[in-house]
């Protein structure tokens, strides 16, 4: 019987995997609690104490608990500690879904990050854009800055592809310091 598993790139050991070239470092950020919030985001803000707008594309989040805007009625809440808010529907008019296991998070550091962004998307990182959800390297991600790093949340099933894309882009001369 054919071994179809060979058709897929082996998933890296995310605890150890790192892309390091001059000016750019990429690694996995594990341990983040992530929740999708849909519905009345103002009501969500009143109940949770977190922002209803959240950061947009390439915006900057500063704290350990923050929100990232995905759509007109949807955001992603991120925290280093579990939220004290129940998942499921809330009578105030919003729903909360735990999605920590569904989204893989990469952190990108270094001055070559801007060059990497320009290769990944035509979206202007200097122009405000309400939603942090965009196509990056050919797949949908949630992209914003956090404490000096660029964070990318991507569906877990696409993480290996995006990792491969990032490795390939990092080898390009302008990014690897050979240009």
């Amino acid at each position, binding site marked *: 019987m054919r071994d179809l598993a060979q058709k897929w790139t082996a998933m890296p050991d995310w605890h150890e995997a790192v892309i390091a070239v001059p000016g750019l470092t990429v690694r996995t950020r594990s341990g983040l609690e992530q929740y999708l919030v849909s519905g009345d985001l103002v009501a969500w803000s009143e109940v949770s104490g977190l922002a209803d707008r959240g950061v947009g594309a390439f915006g900057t989040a500063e704290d350990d608990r923050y929100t990232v805007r995905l759509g007109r009625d949807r955001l992603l809440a991120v925290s280093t500690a579990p939220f004290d808010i129940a998942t499921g529907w809330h009578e105030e008019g919003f729903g909360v879904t735990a999605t920590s296991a569904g989204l893989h998070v990469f952190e990108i550091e270094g001055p070559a990050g801007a060059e990497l962004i320009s290769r990944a998307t035509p979206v202007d990182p200097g122009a405000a*854009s309400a939603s942090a959800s965009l196509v990056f390297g050919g797949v949908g991600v949630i992209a914003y800055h956090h404490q000096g790093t660029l964070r990318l949340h991507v569906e877990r099933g696409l993480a290996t592809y995006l990792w491969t894309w990032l490795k390939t882009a990092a080898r390009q001369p302008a990014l690897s310091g050979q240009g």
Partner: protein
Amino acid sequence: MQLFPCPFCGPRPETEFHYNGEAGNIRPDGAQVSAECWAGYLYERSNPKGAAREIWVHATCQEFFVMERDTVTHQLAATQTPGFAEHAE
């Protein structure tokens, strides 16, 4: 690559958008709808040369909106989500 102005996000690359149909093509309602009426809704398109009003969806933020554009020159006139401010070019 052409940039489309999403009414919620602002300028985004065309690859983030999907065409969703002709604006104003309302689904027939009720039990007495004729076969001709259904056929018109399902199959007949005006296919204008020039100014057109179309429904598009921005796949990344899930915003459905009306886009006014020219089918010959691809020039955009405006995008608007019903109930929200218009995003004019």
